[in-house]
């Protein structure tokens, strides 16, 4: 990192906890809190996208019980940062598996920093696609999606696992901001990735 420290974004409703984490991290160096959001409203989503954080530490209580299973996916639409859960209340272990790390209310500062470090390295291994432009493979997959192929069909066609196809699709959505198949089709047509004659419009 050019700046010498790694940027942490906190998303948690408790100001006291957020300020506490900020103080603890600033004493130890290496990580620095670069922003605090109290929830994930529309405005904060835009901030999330622009912040370029290295780690996002989120208290899952920001989400209601049902949507807690999908926190990781939701954040990966906006950011490639590692996502660490901050466990302020007892929580279902299943719901914590999606994160790159879990930090508890009573972890000591050194453990917190260690866990943040680990989360970044585990995240780096799983992200294979950086930057904003679509890679060649992503474009190929986008074309398949636009033509109406299912994930399974795309996986078979390119000899990939379904999991890989899903990761590519997530990256396509993160880069373009387009989520629906209809929207991706428009994107593919406007960017001349497919021949309009080849599909029914």
């Amino acid at each position: 990192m050019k700046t010498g420290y790694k940027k942490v974004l906190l998303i948690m409703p408790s100001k006291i906890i957020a300020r506490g984490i900020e103080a603890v991290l600033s004493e130890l160096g290496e990580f620095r809190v670069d922003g605090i959001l109290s929830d994930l409203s529309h405005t904060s989503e835009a901030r999330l996208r622009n912040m370029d954080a290295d780690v996002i530490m989120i208290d899952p209580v920001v989400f209601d019980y049902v949507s807690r299973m999908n926190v990781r996916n939701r954040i990966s639409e906006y950011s490639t940062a590692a996502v660490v859960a901050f466990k302020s209340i007892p929580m279902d272990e299943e719901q914590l598996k999606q994160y790159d790390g879990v930090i508890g209310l009573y972890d000591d500062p050194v453990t917190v920093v260690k866990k943040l470090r680990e989360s970044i390295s585990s995240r780096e291994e799983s992200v294979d696609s950086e930057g904003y432009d679509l890679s060649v493979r992503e474009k190929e997959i986008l074309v398949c999606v636009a033509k109406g192929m299912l994930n399974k069909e795309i996986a078979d066609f390119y000899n990939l696992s379904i999991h890989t196809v899903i990761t590519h699709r997530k990256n396509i959505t993160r880069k373009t901001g387009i989520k629906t198949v209809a929207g991706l089709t428009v994107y593919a047509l406007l960017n001349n990735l497919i021949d309009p004659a080849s599909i029914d419009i």
Partner: protein
Amino acid sequence: MTTEIQRIVFSESMKLADLIDVNFKLLNVLSRMGISLGFGENTIQEVCERQNIDLKSFLLICSVYTYDGYVPSAELLTGADPATIVDYLHNSHSFYMQKEFAGLEVELKAMVEPCDATQKKIVARFFADYKAQVTNHFEYEENVVFPYIRALMAGQRQQGYSIDQFEENHSNIDETLNDLKNIVMKYLPDTCDTILRNQVLYRIYRLGEDLLKHTLIEDNILIPMINKIEE
């Protein structure tokens, strides 16, 4: 770092004009409630009484519209009138279909004028699909949910249905509108006029926010209210 927005709680003794000054987007709420402009120095309570609008329901709707993450108190929820909320939602549906979507369609058409025939067709088709999706959703509410609530208010409980079945396909609607925004902003050819494009974008942002509040009124006000009645 982050500053909390000063929370002004609406009260019935507030002047209606001041309410609009706090959040001008409430102009839409007024028109859907049948309140016309020219209310002079009248307070919220005076206008509601004159127009026969349930005061608590009006305040609830204005609060959801104005404060992000607003959760109504149990007292407000029990005191408000579901029929008023349903009327408001119904009028909003008409407004979206007749004004917003019709306006957006005209603006989109003008915007893609310089594009080639295929591009025009692609955009028109995308919008038509979106509109069909929204119409479908509104129709479900108009034909199933609202009649159920109106009957419930009249003391008749329809068998085999409860408000929990209120389908949750709002998110798809948001996503499609959001895709349209990205397409207009990022991917249309630069031959399209910027001013026309901006006009479309402003409308999409405004409409998106409006629809979001519409959903919140359904999810955070109407459904909890009906849940209580069903008990």
